[in-house]
């Protein structure tokens, strides 16, 4: 499991037409650690590993930026829309609190 951290899947529609507003879904394998408490109920103070920022770009321009907290689920999934003006790459970048940076891309092609 640990070795899979940062594995990303991006899904884009395969039958888009120029000018369509399409929806992109992406999923990343990440523990998104929750705040732990000791037996006395005190918060364990350490650097929890969770994703703080997700950036999605299309043709090099940002479309959506997500800022997350620990209230987001483990192995989080994100969806967003974009207006498909030209064939090209969608890039999604994830940054976590332990300095991890994971990036993946998918290409939008017109049917």
């Amino acid at each position, binding site marked *: 499991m640990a070795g899979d951290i940062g594995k990303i899947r991006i899904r884009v529609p395969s039958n888009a037409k120029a000018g369509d*507003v399409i929806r992109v879904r992406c999923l990343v394998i990440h523990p998104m650690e*929750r705040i*732990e408490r000791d037996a006395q109920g005190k918060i364990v103070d350490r650097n929890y590993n969770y994703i703080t920022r997700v950036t999605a770009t299309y043709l090099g321009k940002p*479309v*959506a930026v997500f*800022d997350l*907290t620990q209230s987001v689920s483990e192995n989080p*999934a994100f969806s*967003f829309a974009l207006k498909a003006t030209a064939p090209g790459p969608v890039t999604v970048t994830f940054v976590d609190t332990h300095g991890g940076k994971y990036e993946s891309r998918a290409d939008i092609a017109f049917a």
Partner: protein
Amino acid sequence: MAESITRRSALGTLGVVGVTLAAGALGTPATARAQASPQALGLQETVQDGLKRVFGGRPMKDGSALIKLEIPPIAENGAVVPVNVEVNAPMTPASYVKTIWIVADKNRIPIVVRATLTPDAGQAFVGTHIRLGETTDVRAVVEQSDGTLLTAKREVKVTVGGCGG
């Protein structure tokens, strides 16, 4: 229970003081600082404190006619609750939906996610999976490019909480 609420609000207050101090040292207003740092989003606080910290006292209009908040009314597993927010508003450079917040009222960290959009998105839509600790209201707060705040909320019944500790 009463004890834990006191501790939590105390922590929230400390967090705000910390942010204010840090902002003071850098010479930027506290609100700008809080919005610039993603870590500052995730404080343990009550939802009232969180909304006050993020939005100040800005008025919020009821946006339930424009905001489509898709979330299951009953979540069997609070660890993964899918949420989709769609706003029926134009996405042009002149007028667009700038930011969408998802807020879970009773979570220890109530501000769940902030999504910043650009007009290139073509449609104001975001979706993600969130954790819910217990049965709670979930709200979407939408900020348009002219600064108008709209909000809509729905109650979700949670069978098994997903926030642990």
